[in-house]
């Protein structure tokens, strides 16, 4: 690839953030994403930015909240148990409609689970995670290039909708290295953040209050309604997915993240044998691409959902097909070995495909 640099996923994500103009990182070390934290620790001071190692993930997300109220682009990165700790702050971010970006490099849960890769946070991430009912935009890369590009997109979407955007990655994507084009993306202009807290002296005496108690003044239902209208707008305009060899497919694989790569391998094997298999890969897992799934179900496609969990995204596929299609599931129990190092490999997916066609 021309002009490409060989970098790891753990370099692509922080580099994407820096290239999006993010100069503030707040985080707490946790495996398997410590290299991201360390990248920011090295790079931010050189650029006049601020790197803060917080005392916990709850504190990191509170610092993120603070930085967002001041109108700057800021980020925290974590892995599953840390994601769990952040939920209180995230719920407040949702209610205050603050533009923030969080990276969750999934590892196996629940509890301490394993420090290695998995896809067991899907439901927590796509359903909001904390109390009260809200939505995070969730972007799921499947390559190092996408780690870089989607992190930039995350900042744009956060500012466009005043919403939290999650980059949902995993331990495998962090550790692989691929040629990556490090090209800053030009996004359309965004409105000025005239609501940001800077001190009234910088705002001609105008003051702003950003308050999580704003629903207490008799406006709760009104604010909740506006918030969900925003979520509907995002649902209507921001769905992204990759369709690969899906046009003539009799069986569609549905997968995201590192597992989608195994599925692509399986499809090559299947196509070589003349089997009509394709892939729908959600890039936004919220908003989920229900419409294309529904369309394909109406055309008589069968589905095989492949994910490195005991079955989470499969629920969204069931919602999308509305009972019109046969849905099969290949999950964490199909890993090539039973220890925490086990992965879902193309051969395993291919074997399953042959059983279904």
């Amino acid at each position: 690839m021309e002009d490409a640099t060989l970098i790891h996923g753990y370099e692509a994500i922080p580099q994407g953030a820096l290239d999006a103009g993010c100069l503030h990182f707040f985080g707490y070390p946790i495996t398997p994403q410590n290299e991201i934290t360390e990248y920011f620790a090295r790079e931010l001071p050189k650029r006049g930015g601020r790197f803060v190692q917080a005392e916990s993930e709850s504190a990191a997300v509170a610092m993120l909240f603070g930085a967002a109220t001041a109108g700057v682009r800021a980020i925290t990165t974590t892995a599953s148990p840390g994601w769990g700790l952040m939920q209180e702050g995230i719920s407040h971010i949702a209610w205050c409609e603050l533009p923030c970006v969080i990276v969750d490099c999934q590892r196996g849960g629940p509890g301490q689970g394993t420090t290695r890769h998995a896809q067991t946070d899907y439901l927590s991430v796509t359903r909001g995670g904390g109390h009260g009912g809200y939505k995070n935009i969730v972007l799921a890369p499947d390559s190092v290039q996408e780690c870089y590009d989607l992190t930039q997109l995350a900042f744009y979407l956060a500012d466009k909708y005043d919403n939290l955007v999650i980059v949902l990655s995993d331990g495998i994507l962090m550790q692989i290295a691929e040629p990556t084009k490090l090209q800053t993306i030009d996004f359309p202009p965004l409105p000025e953040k005239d609501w940001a807290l800077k001190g009234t002296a910088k705002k001609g005496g105008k003051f702003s209050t950003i308050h999580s108690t704003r629903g207490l003044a008799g406006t709760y239902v009104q604010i909740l309604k506006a918030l969900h209208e925003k979520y509907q707008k995002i649902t209507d305009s921001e769905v992204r997915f990759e369709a690969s060899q899906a046009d003539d497919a009799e069986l569609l694989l549905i997968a995201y993240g590192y597992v989608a790569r195994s599925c692509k391998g399986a499809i090559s094997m299947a196509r070589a044998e003349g089997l009509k298999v394709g892939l729908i890969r959600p890039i936004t897992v919220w908003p989920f691409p229900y419409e294309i799934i529904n369309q394909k179900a109406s055309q008589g496609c069968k589905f095989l959902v492949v994910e490195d969990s005991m079955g989470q995204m499969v629920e969204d596929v069931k919602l999308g097909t509305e009972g019109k299609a046969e849905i099969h599931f290949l999950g964490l129990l199909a890993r090539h070995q039973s220890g925490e190092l086990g992965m879902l490999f193309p051969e395993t997916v291919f074997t399953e495909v042959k059983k279904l066609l």
Partner: protein
Amino acid sequence: MSDKKAIVKEKIYGPSELRPRYGAGGCRGCGHPLVAKAILETIEELDIAGRVIYVQGIGCSTGGLGTKLDGTVQAHGPAPAVATGIKHALFDDAIVITLQGDGDCAAIGSGYLIAAAARAQRITVFMYNNANYGTTGGQLAPTTLLGQVTTTTPAGREPRMFGYPIHVPEMLATMRGVVYSARSAINTPANYQRTKRYAKVALQKQIDDVGFSFVEVLTPCTINWHMEPVDAMKWIGEEMIAEYPLGEFKNVAQID
């Protein structure tokens, strides 16, 4: 409101450039608006209003400001971490203060408080101590006195089950990153002036970029103490100050 009542209110609460409306600290005899007034007057006297950003927690301390300053009301506990985020976001070009209750600051938020102090974060934390959880109806707080009756210690706070009152400024004074740590009260005109004096030093430490500063203020909660306002002020003087002595526990010109 009758003219007389308006005059009385104005004498107690206002007027102030920063305080366009009378305090939202709703209960009769609540001390929170007085603490807020002392802080706001100090901010005016230091001429830093345009640079101040406040961070409030959840509890009665949430309602006590009602001001024209930039600020945020966020979750219960993490105000020092939120303040940290704001301070860094603006590359230290702001005076960031937190206004927190005793439960917010010393129970659910104690971890955030200690960590911010250890980082010598250039912020100023004001803690309202009314020895109980006011907003939720008068339950045990970390600052509740031994023997004090609350709705969750109906037989009085006894230490075997409920532990001992926490002395926050004394504790913070042991930390290297803390450059100012003091406790005042709002029960007498003299102590009102003391509160302003302490607030002024604490804010000046931040203006001078010296380190973390902290002021606790003892304040009455008439409703949950089941006392008339005058008796509540007396109770602070007779009971609370005995447990929580007023004074400056640390005041250094620079971190040693």
